[in-house]
């Protein structure tokens, strides 16, 4: 049986719709019910969280979770849609430890907040970087530079401080 349909049977309140992501069964989940759905998914044997993707669609964000079951060799895709002004979804770190960095990365580059994440700070870009680069409205024209502070921490500025040899 299609695992997306199975999930819908088990949790009818959480699943908005089911469909296919090309060749993988996909279920669109209500934002509030994500953690419950994820718990159920894990119970169903999907033990491998492959990837978390956040995408900016100008008016809303989509967060896509790709799961895989080592036992049943099945794929399952969960999709959550959030609003654009204050994108927030529940964190899955309590279920998959691997979600930790994937969520931090999504937060860093796309700017989606994961509530309940133990350590939601930027991972690839330094603290203090302005904007989230993978948003469609990210300002590519303003160049930001990183310099080192007293204790070796990163300091972000737009002029480069003493870093550049000539302005």
């Amino acid at each position, binding site marked *: 049986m299609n695992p997306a349909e199975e999930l819908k049977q088990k949790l009818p309140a959480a699943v908005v719709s089911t469909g296919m*992501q*090309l*060749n*993988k069964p996909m279920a669109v989940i209500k934002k509030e019910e994500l953690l419950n759905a994820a718990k159920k998914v894990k119970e169903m044997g999907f*033990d*491998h*969280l*492959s*990837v978390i*993707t956040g*995408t*900016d669609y100008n008016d809303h964000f989509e967060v*896509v979770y*790709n799961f895989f079951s*080592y036992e049943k*060799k099945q794929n399952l*895709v969960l999709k959550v849609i959030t609003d654009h002004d204050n994108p927030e979804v529940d964190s899955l770190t309590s279920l*998959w*430890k*691997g*979600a*930790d*960095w*994937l969520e931090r*990365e999504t937060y860093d*580059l796309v700017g989606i907040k994961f509530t309940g994440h133990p350590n939601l700070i*930027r*991972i*690839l*870009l*330094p603290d203090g970087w302005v904007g989230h*680069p*993978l948003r469609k409205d*990210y300002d590519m024209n303003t160049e930001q530079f990183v310099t080192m502070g007293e204790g*070796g921490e990163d300091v972000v500025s737009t002029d480069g401080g003493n870093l550049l040899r000539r302005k």
Partner: protein
Amino acid sequence: METDELLINMGPVHPSTHGVLRFKLRMDGEIIKECTPVLGYLHRGTEKLGEMKTYLQFIPYTDRLDYVSAFPNNYVFVKAVEELAGIEVPLRAEYIRVITMELNRIVNHLVSIGSLLMDLGAATMIMWGFRERENALQLFEKLCGARMTFNYIKPGGVREDIPEGFIPQLNEFLKDMEKRIEDYEQLINSNEIFLMRMKNIGVISAQEAVNYGMTGPTLRGSGVDYDLRRYEPYSIYPDLDFKVCSRPEGDSYARYIVRIDEMKESLHILRQVVDTMPEGKIVSNPKYGIAPMTGTPSAVSTYFPRIFTPPAGEVYSRIEAPKGELGFYVVSDGTTKPYRVKIRSPSFCNLTAIPKMVVGLKIPDLIAAFGTIDVVLGDVDR
């Protein structure tokens, strides 16, 4: 006596962090209390560039993600695009792709094992490894003119057909490599000091490995017998005979042995592929951006660049790269450029488990464990 914890900052420039990774270590004497990796020193914004380039323009960037094994990177992006656009690939092209990817797996493991041994203090293995790597790179060069960054696999096939003399040279390499792997085993496997350094170091159980999202040799070293080539087959892997190498121990030594075994399996695969190589086209349809390389170089320029637009949709495509599960999540909005490219890199996800693995160990153990995770920073930071 009063004691204090020592904070040590390893990297981003440190001989054994394989590039620009940085560890913040909280130490009690020589024992690691807490290890925090700090990433991002090689963050080049590849995903953003993916949105700014056309599909064909983006292929060279995939080479530079995991620069030790670039062919699988090439392949998985192209595979995603092919799935999205529903492009057929001729059989001969698939065979050539598998040759490149398996050769690249051998190259990757040579570099990985070599640098592991160098970090442990035995510099000879890396020299030997690079000697054989050089032979493989000559094969790559013959095939596509590049040593490390290939831009060879294209939607609908491969860029050029196999040149003359490639197959004999490949056969020679395979024969040579078999002997060499025995040499390596002789040099390393029975070395008492090596065993002392590797056994029971950086142990991670199967459940934890799965929970952390580890994949590839690091997962198989923990006893999870899982390989995408076998269980979610792509390309011509269903027709090939190979075994999935795994070890139950979950320590550094197991991960190392898995790599050595995988090299042997790759040789086995390559021998089969060479023997059963079919004749035929290497491109299904040149309109996807491949110039048939039969004429002069100017013939190439008349075909390039091709712009093609896959239909709108999204796809997550993944393969078993040498380092683990490598996936590309591509969203198309029906224009010439991808709307979103997300790279699921094996190094990034495998590295997640390092803080768990090394607590209570010492700095030399951190290096041994980290070496067997086999991380390339271009792949981690993207």
